[in-house]
Protein backbone atom coordinates (compact mmCIF):
# COMPACT_ATOMS: atom_id res chain seq x y z
CA UNK A 1 0.00 0.00 0.00
CA UNK A 2 1.38 3.41 -0.92
CA UNK A 3 2.86 5.33 2.03
CA UNK A 4 0.58 8.24 1.55
CA UNK A 5 -2.54 6.12 1.63
CA UNK A 6 -1.48 4.64 4.92
CA UNK A 7 -0.91 8.03 6.47
CA UNK A 8 -4.16 9.41 5.09
CA UNK A 9 -6.23 6.48 6.33
CA UNK A 10 -4.68 6.83 9.76
CA UNK A 11 -5.24 10.59 9.81
CA UNK A 12 -8.84 10.48 8.68
CA UNK A 13 -9.85 7.61 10.94
CA UNK A 14 -8.24 9.47 13.82
CA UNK A 15 -10.16 12.66 13.01
CA UNK A 16 -13.62 11.12 12.83
CA UNK A 17 -13.07 9.34 16.13
CA UNK A 18 -16.21 7.69 17.42
CA UNK A 19 -18.20 8.43 14.31
CA UNK A 20 -16.20 6.03 12.15
CA UNK A 21 -16.01 5.95 8.38
CA UNK A 22 -17.27 3.50 5.77
CA UNK A 23 -15.00 2.14 3.07
CA UNK A 24 -17.25 3.89 0.55
CA UNK A 25 -16.59 7.26 2.13
CA UNK A 26 -12.88 6.62 2.23
CA UNK A 27 -12.88 5.37 -1.36
CA UNK A 28 -14.56 8.55 -2.50
CA UNK A 29 -12.17 10.85 -0.69
CA UNK A 30 -9.02 8.97 -1.67
CA UNK A 31 -10.24 8.21 -5.17
CA UNK A 32 -9.59 4.50 -5.13
CA UNK A 33 -12.02 1.63 -5.52
CA UNK A 34 -13.86 0.33 -2.48
CA UNK A 35 -12.13 -3.03 -2.94
CA UNK A 36 -8.71 -1.48 -2.85
CA UNK A 37 -9.56 0.58 0.21
CA UNK A 38 -10.98 -2.43 2.02
CA UNK A 39 -7.90 -4.49 1.25
CA UNK A 40 -5.69 -1.74 2.65
CA UNK A 41 -7.87 -1.33 5.70
CA UNK A 42 -7.59 -5.07 6.37
CA UNK A 43 -3.85 -4.81 6.06
CA UNK A 44 -3.79 -1.84 8.43
CA UNK A 45 -6.07 -3.52 10.96
CA UNK A 46 -3.74 -6.46 11.06
CA UNK A 47 -0.71 -4.26 11.46
CA UNK A 48 -2.14 -2.29 14.38
CA UNK A 49 -3.25 -5.41 16.20
CA UNK A 50 0.04 -7.17 15.77
CA UNK A 51 2.31 -4.27 16.64
CA UNK A 52 2.76 -4.24 20.40
CA UNK A 53 3.94 -0.65 20.52
CA UNK A 54 0.61 0.56 19.18
CA UNK A 55 -1.96 1.60 21.75
CA UNK A 56 -4.84 1.84 19.32
CA UNK A 57 -6.43 -0.51 16.83
CA UNK A 58 -9.01 -0.33 14.07
CA UNK A 59 -12.34 -2.06 14.54
CA UNK A 60 -14.95 -2.68 11.89
CA UNK A 61 -18.51 -2.73 13.16
CA UNK A 62 -21.74 -2.06 11.35
CA UNK A 63 -19.99 -1.09 8.15
CA UNK A 64 -17.86 1.53 9.87
CA UNK A 65 -14.16 1.52 10.53
CA UNK A 66 -12.88 3.37 13.55
CA UNK A 67 -9.99 3.61 15.94
CA UNK A 68 -10.42 2.51 19.53
CA UNK A 69 -7.86 2.14 22.29
CA UNK A 70 -6.41 -1.32 22.86
CA UNK A 71 -7.60 -3.27 25.82
CA UNK A 72 -4.23 -3.24 27.51
CA UNK A 73 -4.50 0.54 27.75
CA UNK A 74 -7.77 0.34 29.65
CA UNK A 75 -6.30 -0.20 33.08
CA UNK A 76 -4.38 3.06 32.67
CA UNK A 77 -7.37 4.81 31.17
CA UNK A 78 -9.40 3.87 34.19
CA UNK A 79 -6.78 5.35 36.43
CA UNK A 80 -6.51 8.50 34.35
CA UNK A 81 -10.17 9.27 34.06
CA UNK A 82 -10.98 8.37 37.64
CA UNK A 83 -8.28 10.79 38.76
CA UNK A 84 -8.92 13.59 36.32
CA UNK A 85 -10.45 16.31 38.34
CA UNK A 86 -13.48 16.66 36.23
CA UNK A 87 -15.31 19.90 36.53
CA UNK A 88 -18.06 19.23 39.00
CA UNK A 89 -20.50 19.36 36.15
CA UNK A 90 -19.87 16.72 33.56
CA UNK A 91 -18.91 17.74 30.07
CA UNK A 92 -22.21 16.39 28.79
CA UNK A 93 -24.12 18.50 31.28
CA UNK A 94 -22.12 21.59 30.40
CA UNK A 95 -22.69 21.09 26.70
CA UNK A 96 -26.40 20.60 27.17
CA UNK A 97 -26.64 23.70 29.34
CA UNK A 98 -24.64 25.72 26.84
CA UNK A 99 -26.98 24.73 24.02
CA UNK A 100 -30.04 25.63 26.05
CA UNK A 101 -28.58 28.93 27.20
CA UNK A 102 -27.71 30.00 23.68
CA UNK A 103 -30.77 28.63 21.91
CA UNK A 104 -33.60 28.81 24.39
CA UNK A 105 -36.46 28.15 24.26
CA UNK A 106 -35.54 24.80 22.78
CA UNK A 107 -37.01 21.31 22.63
CA UNK A 108 -35.23 18.14 23.66
CA UNK A 109 -35.24 17.02 20.07
CA UNK A 110 -33.45 20.14 18.95
CA UNK A 111 -30.82 19.68 21.66
CA UNK A 112 -30.31 16.09 20.53
CA UNK A 113 -29.91 17.20 16.96
CA UNK A 114 -27.15 19.57 17.92
CA UNK A 115 -25.39 17.27 20.36
CA UNK A 116 -25.85 14.20 18.20
CA UNK A 117 -26.77 12.02 21.16
CA UNK A 118 -29.86 11.31 23.20
CA UNK A 119 -30.42 13.74 26.06
CA UNK A 120 -33.43 12.38 27.85
CA UNK A 121 -31.65 11.49 31.06
CA UNK A 122 -29.52 14.60 30.97
CA UNK A 123 -32.52 16.88 30.59
CA UNK A 124 -34.19 15.15 33.53
CA UNK A 125 -31.07 15.54 35.63
CA UNK A 126 -30.80 19.22 34.84
CA UNK A 127 -34.50 19.69 35.59
CA UNK A 128 -34.00 17.93 38.92
CA UNK A 129 -31.03 20.17 39.66
CA UNK A 130 -33.22 23.14 38.87
CA UNK A 131 -30.75 24.43 36.28
CA UNK A 132 -33.38 24.35 33.52
CA UNK A 133 -37.16 24.44 33.48
CA UNK A 134 -40.04 23.81 31.14
CA UNK A 135 -41.46 26.91 29.51
CA UNK A 136 -44.41 25.97 27.37
CA UNK A 137 -44.62 23.75 24.35
CA UNK A 138 -43.35 24.00 20.81
CA UNK A 139 -45.62 24.03 17.78
CA UNK A 140 -43.65 21.14 16.30
CA UNK A 141 -45.20 17.74 15.80
CA UNK A 142 -46.18 16.18 19.09
CA UNK A 143 -46.02 19.58 20.79
CA UNK A 144 -42.88 18.81 22.78
CA UNK A 145 -41.85 20.78 25.84
CA UNK A 146 -39.63 23.79 25.50
CA UNK A 147 -36.82 24.36 27.96
CA UNK A 148 -35.00 27.40 29.24
CA UNK A 149 -32.42 28.08 31.92
CA UNK A 150 -33.39 29.13 35.45
CA UNK A 151 -32.26 31.89 37.80
CA UNK A 152 -30.35 29.15 39.58
CA UNK A 153 -28.43 28.57 36.38
CA UNK A 154 -27.60 32.26 36.18
CA UNK A 155 -26.38 32.10 39.71
CA UNK A 156 -24.19 29.07 39.08
CA UNK A 157 -22.55 30.69 36.09
CA UNK A 158 -22.30 34.15 37.60
CA UNK A 159 -24.49 35.72 34.97
CA UNK A 160 -26.86 38.57 35.52
CA UNK A 161 -28.57 38.03 32.22
CA UNK A 162 -28.09 35.86 29.18
CA UNK A 163 -27.02 38.94 27.28
CA UNK A 164 -23.78 38.73 29.19
CA UNK A 165 -23.01 35.41 27.60
CA UNK A 166 -19.96 35.89 25.46
CA UNK A 167 -20.55 35.91 21.77
CA UNK A 168 -20.16 32.47 20.30
CA UNK A 169 -16.78 31.73 18.85
CA UNK A 170 -16.86 32.64 15.20
CA UNK A 171 -17.54 29.33 13.67
CA UNK A 172 -16.56 28.40 10.26
CA UNK A 173 -19.14 26.46 8.49
CA UNK A 174 -22.50 27.08 7.03
CA UNK A 175 -24.16 24.72 9.41
CA UNK A 176 -23.17 26.79 12.41
CA UNK A 177 -24.10 30.01 10.83
CA UNK A 178 -27.52 28.64 10.20
CA UNK A 179 -27.76 27.52 13.77
CA UNK A 180 -26.22 30.54 15.31
CA UNK A 181 -26.52 33.69 13.39
CA UNK A 182 -23.52 35.84 13.78
CA UNK A 183 -23.00 39.47 13.33
CA UNK A 184 -19.69 40.49 11.97
CA UNK A 185 -18.33 43.73 13.16
Amino acid at each position, binding site marked *: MPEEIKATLEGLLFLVG*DEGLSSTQLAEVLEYSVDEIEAWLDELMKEYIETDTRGIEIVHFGGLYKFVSKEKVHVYAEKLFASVKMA*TLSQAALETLAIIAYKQPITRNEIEEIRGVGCDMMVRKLLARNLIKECGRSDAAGRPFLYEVTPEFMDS*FQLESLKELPELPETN*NTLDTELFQEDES
Partner: protein
Amino acid sequence: MAFEITIDQFEGPLDLMLHLIKENKLDLFDLNMDTLTDQYLAYLNTMEALHLEVASEYLAELAGLIEYKSKKLLPREKVVIEEEYEEDQRDKLVKRLLEYQRFKEVSSLFQQQYEERQKMMSKPMSTESNQWMNVKIEEDFKGNPYDLVKAMHKVLRRLVLAQPYETKVTVKEMSVDERKAQIVKRLQNWTGKMDFPTLCSDCTDLHMVIVSFLAILDMIRFKMITYLIDEEEMIWIVKGEVAYA
Protein backbone atom coordinates in the same frame (compact mmCIF):
# COMPACT_ATOMS: atom_id res chain seq x y z
CA MET B 1 -2.26 60.72 -5.76
CA ALA B 2 -4.69 58.01 -6.67
CA PHE B 3 -6.80 56.65 -3.87
CA GLU B 4 -7.14 53.08 -4.90
CA ILE B 5 -6.87 52.08 -1.32
CA THR B 6 -9.95 52.56 0.79
CA ILE B 7 -10.11 53.29 4.44
CA ASP B 8 -11.25 49.84 5.52
CA GLN B 9 -7.96 48.43 4.37
CA PHE B 10 -6.32 50.18 7.28
CA GLU B 11 -6.41 49.00 10.84
CA GLY B 12 -6.57 52.52 12.18
CA PRO B 13 -5.06 56.01 11.91
CA LEU B 14 -1.55 54.79 12.73
CA ASP B 15 -1.73 52.21 10.01
CA LEU B 16 -2.89 54.88 7.58
CA MET B 17 -0.06 57.21 8.60
CA LEU B 18 2.51 54.45 8.09
CA HIS B 19 1.07 53.92 4.65
CA LEU B 20 1.27 57.62 3.80
CA ILE B 21 4.81 57.86 5.10
CA LYS B 22 5.85 54.96 2.93
CA GLU B 23 3.91 56.22 -0.06
CA ASN B 24 5.49 59.67 0.15
CA LYS B 25 8.92 58.33 1.06
CA LEU B 26 9.02 60.41 4.21
CA ASP B 27 11.80 59.85 6.71
CA LEU B 28 10.27 58.48 9.85
CA PHE B 29 13.23 59.64 11.93
CA ASP B 30 13.05 63.18 10.67
CA LEU B 31 9.39 63.26 10.03
CA ASN B 32 8.00 66.10 8.01
CA MET B 33 4.83 66.71 9.92
CA ASP B 34 3.48 69.24 7.43
CA THR B 35 3.54 66.80 4.56
CA LEU B 36 2.09 64.05 6.70
CA THR B 37 -0.70 66.31 7.93
CA ASP B 38 -1.55 67.47 4.42
CA GLN B 39 -1.56 63.96 3.04
CA TYR B 40 -3.59 62.66 5.94
CA LEU B 41 -6.16 65.41 5.55
CA ALA B 42 -6.32 64.93 1.79
CA TYR B 43 -6.89 61.24 2.26
CA LEU B 44 -9.71 61.67 4.74
CA ASN B 45 -11.33 64.27 2.47
CA THR B 46 -11.26 61.89 -0.44
CA MET B 47 -12.76 59.13 1.63
CA GLU B 48 -15.50 61.48 2.71
CA ALA B 49 -16.11 62.51 -0.89
CA LEU B 50 -16.48 58.84 -1.74
CA HIS B 51 -19.05 58.61 1.06
CA LEU B 52 -16.95 56.13 2.93
CA GLU B 53 -17.47 56.21 6.61
CA VAL B 54 -14.43 57.43 8.49
CA ALA B 55 -14.25 56.22 12.07
CA SER B 56 -13.89 58.79 14.83
CA GLU B 57 -10.39 57.55 15.69
CA TYR B 58 -9.14 58.91 12.39
CA LEU B 59 -10.60 62.30 13.15
CA ALA B 60 -9.15 62.32 16.64
CA GLU B 61 -5.65 61.82 15.24
CA LEU B 62 -6.33 64.47 12.63
CA ALA B 63 -7.09 66.94 15.37
CA GLY B 64 -3.71 66.19 16.92
CA LEU B 65 -1.91 66.73 13.62
CA ILE B 66 -3.68 70.00 12.95
CA GLU B 67 -3.00 71.25 16.44
CA TYR B 68 0.67 70.60 15.86
CA LYS B 69 0.60 72.43 12.57
CA SER B 70 -1.28 75.43 13.97
CA LYS B 71 1.25 75.84 16.75
CA LYS B 72 3.83 76.58 14.11
CA LEU B 73 1.79 79.48 12.85
CA LEU B 74 1.89 81.22 16.17
CA PRO B 75 3.79 84.56 16.47
CA ARG B 76 7.55 84.20 16.39
CA GLU B 77 8.35 85.11 19.96
CA LYS B 78 6.33 82.21 21.17
CA VAL B 79 8.13 79.75 19.00
CA VAL B 80 11.12 79.33 21.28
CA ILE B 81 8.95 78.03 24.05
CA GLU B 82 6.76 76.05 21.75
CA GLU B 83 9.57 74.43 19.88
CA GLU B 84 10.25 72.02 22.67
CA TYR B 85 6.63 71.16 22.81
CA GLU B 86 6.55 70.58 19.08
CA GLU B 87 9.54 68.29 19.26
CA ASP B 88 7.81 66.42 22.02
CA GLN B 89 4.64 66.00 20.04
CA ARG B 90 6.48 64.87 16.99
CA ASP B 91 8.65 62.44 18.91
CA LYS B 92 5.64 61.08 20.61
CA LEU B 93 3.92 60.39 17.33
CA VAL B 94 7.02 58.81 15.81
CA LYS B 95 7.38 56.61 18.86
CA ARG B 96 3.78 55.49 18.57
CA LEU B 97 4.18 54.77 14.88
CA LEU B 98 7.29 52.71 15.51
CA GLU B 99 5.69 50.82 18.35
CA TYR B 100 2.62 50.07 16.30
CA GLN B 101 4.75 49.03 13.36
CA ARG B 102 6.48 46.37 15.47
CA PHE B 103 3.24 44.67 16.33
CA LYS B 104 1.90 44.98 12.85
CA GLU B 105 5.00 43.23 11.57
CA VAL B 106 5.02 40.48 14.11
CA SER B 107 1.36 39.76 13.55
CA SER B 108 2.11 38.40 10.11
CA LEU B 109 4.26 35.74 11.78
CA PHE B 110 1.36 35.04 14.09
CA GLN B 111 -0.85 34.58 11.09
CA GLN B 112 1.45 31.98 9.53
CA GLN B 113 1.61 30.04 12.77
CA TYR B 114 -2.13 30.18 13.10
CA GLU B 115 -2.85 28.98 9.59
CA GLU B 116 -0.42 26.12 9.93
CA ARG B 117 -1.98 25.07 13.21
CA GLN B 118 -5.45 25.17 11.67
CA LYS B 119 -4.40 22.41 9.33
CA MET B 120 -3.50 20.12 12.18
CA MET B 121 -6.78 18.87 13.49
CA SER B 122 -7.79 16.89 16.51
CA LYS B 123 -10.78 14.91 17.61
CA PRO B 124 -13.09 15.19 20.59
CA MET B 125 -12.50 12.96 23.59
CA SER B 126 -13.51 9.37 22.79
CA THR B 127 -16.83 8.26 24.19
CA GLU B 128 -14.99 5.16 25.38
CA SER B 129 -13.71 7.40 28.12
CA ASN B 130 -17.14 7.86 29.65
CA GLN B 131 -17.07 4.39 31.15
CA TRP B 132 -14.12 5.31 33.30
CA MET B 133 -15.12 8.77 34.22
CA ASN B 134 -16.05 9.64 37.73
CA VAL B 135 -18.79 12.06 37.03
CA LYS B 136 -20.75 13.47 39.82
CA ILE B 137 -22.89 16.51 39.72
CA GLU B 138 -22.20 18.37 42.87
CA GLU B 139 -24.75 20.40 44.67
CA ASP B 140 -22.88 23.63 44.70
CA PHE B 141 -21.66 24.17 41.20
CA LYS B 142 -19.86 27.38 40.44
CA GLY B 143 -18.84 27.98 36.88
CA ASN B 144 -18.27 30.95 34.69
CA PRO B 145 -19.65 31.97 31.33
CA TYR B 146 -16.55 30.81 29.50
CA ASP B 147 -17.20 27.26 30.61
CA LEU B 148 -20.35 27.53 28.57
CA VAL B 149 -18.64 28.98 25.52
CA LYS B 150 -16.01 26.29 25.66
CA ALA B 151 -18.64 23.61 25.91
CA MET B 152 -20.51 25.14 23.01
CA HIS B 153 -17.38 25.26 20.96
CA LYS B 154 -16.97 21.53 21.46
CA VAL B 155 -20.53 20.86 20.46
CA LEU B 156 -20.07 22.77 17.24
CA ARG B 157 -16.83 21.04 16.42
CA ARG B 158 -18.38 17.64 16.90
CA LEU B 159 -21.35 18.67 14.83
CA VAL B 160 -19.00 19.35 11.93
CA LEU B 161 -17.22 16.04 12.34
CA ALA B 162 -20.50 14.16 12.49
CA GLN B 163 -21.57 15.37 9.10
CA PRO B 164 -19.29 14.04 6.41
CA TYR B 165 -20.76 15.32 3.20
CA GLU B 166 -21.26 11.93 1.59
CA THR B 167 -23.80 10.97 4.16
CA LYS B 168 -26.00 13.80 3.02
CA VAL B 169 -25.87 12.54 -0.52
CA THR B 170 -26.18 8.86 0.14
CA VAL B 171 -28.98 8.99 2.71
CA LYS B 172 -31.45 6.49 1.44
CA GLU B 173 -34.85 7.99 0.93
CA MET B 174 -37.66 5.95 2.36
CA SER B 175 -40.27 4.65 -0.06
CA VAL B 176 -44.01 4.96 0.46
CA ASP B 177 -44.35 1.20 0.85
CA GLU B 178 -41.68 1.06 3.51
CA ARG B 179 -43.31 3.89 5.38
CA LYS B 180 -46.69 2.21 5.08
CA ALA B 181 -45.32 -0.91 6.71
CA GLN B 182 -43.92 1.21 9.54
CA ILE B 183 -47.21 2.97 10.09
CA VAL B 184 -49.19 -0.26 10.12
CA LYS B 185 -46.85 -1.59 12.75
CA ARG B 186 -47.16 1.55 14.81
CA LEU B 187 -50.94 1.56 14.68
CA GLN B 188 -51.11 -2.05 15.88
CA ASN B 189 -50.96 -1.13 19.52
CA TRP B 190 -52.79 2.13 19.16
CA THR B 191 -56.32 2.62 20.25
CA GLY B 192 -58.45 5.57 19.23
CA LYS B 193 -57.28 8.16 16.78
CA MET B 194 -53.91 9.65 16.09
CA ASP B 195 -53.22 13.11 14.79
CA PHE B 196 -50.93 13.60 11.83
CA PRO B 197 -48.15 15.42 13.74
CA THR B 198 -47.92 12.53 16.18
CA LEU B 199 -47.75 10.14 13.29
CA CYS B 200 -44.87 12.16 11.92
CA SER B 201 -43.02 12.52 15.20
CA ASP B 202 -40.42 10.00 14.06
CA CYS B 203 -39.76 11.83 10.81
CA THR B 204 -36.23 13.10 10.45
CA ASP B 205 -36.80 15.39 7.50
CA LEU B 206 -39.40 16.95 5.29
CA HIS B 207 -39.14 14.19 2.74
CA MET B 208 -40.23 11.66 5.32
CA VAL B 209 -43.24 13.76 6.28
CA ILE B 210 -44.32 13.85 2.66
CA VAL B 211 -43.81 10.11 2.32
CA SER B 212 -45.90 9.64 5.47
CA PHE B 213 -48.68 11.66 3.93
CA LEU B 214 -48.57 9.66 0.71
CA ALA B 215 -48.58 6.49 2.77
CA ILE B 216 -51.75 7.36 4.62
CA LEU B 217 -53.46 8.40 1.37
CA ASP B 218 -52.64 4.94 0.12
CA MET B 219 -53.89 3.33 3.29
CA ILE B 220 -57.14 5.26 3.09
CA ARG B 221 -57.57 4.10 -0.48
CA PHE B 222 -57.18 0.50 0.61
CA LYS B 223 -59.54 1.17 3.51
CA MET B 224 -56.93 0.23 6.08
CA ILE B 225 -57.68 3.46 7.91
CA THR B 226 -60.11 6.32 7.77
CA TYR B 227 -59.55 9.91 8.58
CA LEU B 228 -61.30 12.99 9.79
CA ILE B 229 -60.47 16.63 9.92
CA ASP B 230 -61.55 18.70 12.90
CA GLU B 231 -62.43 22.38 13.24
CA GLU B 232 -58.81 23.30 13.62
CA GLU B 233 -57.96 21.54 10.40
CA MET B 234 -56.08 18.85 12.24
CA ILE B 235 -55.95 15.55 10.37
CA TRP B 236 -56.80 12.55 12.50
CA ILE B 237 -56.10 8.97 11.51
CA VAL B 238 -58.57 6.38 12.66
CA LYS B 239 -57.88 2.69 12.65
CA GLY B 240 -60.33 0.44 10.83
CA GLU B 241 -62.82 1.04 8.13
CA VAL B 242 -65.69 2.84 9.77
CA ALA B 243 -65.10 5.18 12.58
CA TYR B 244 -66.30 8.64 13.09
CA ALA B 245 -65.44 10.38 16.27
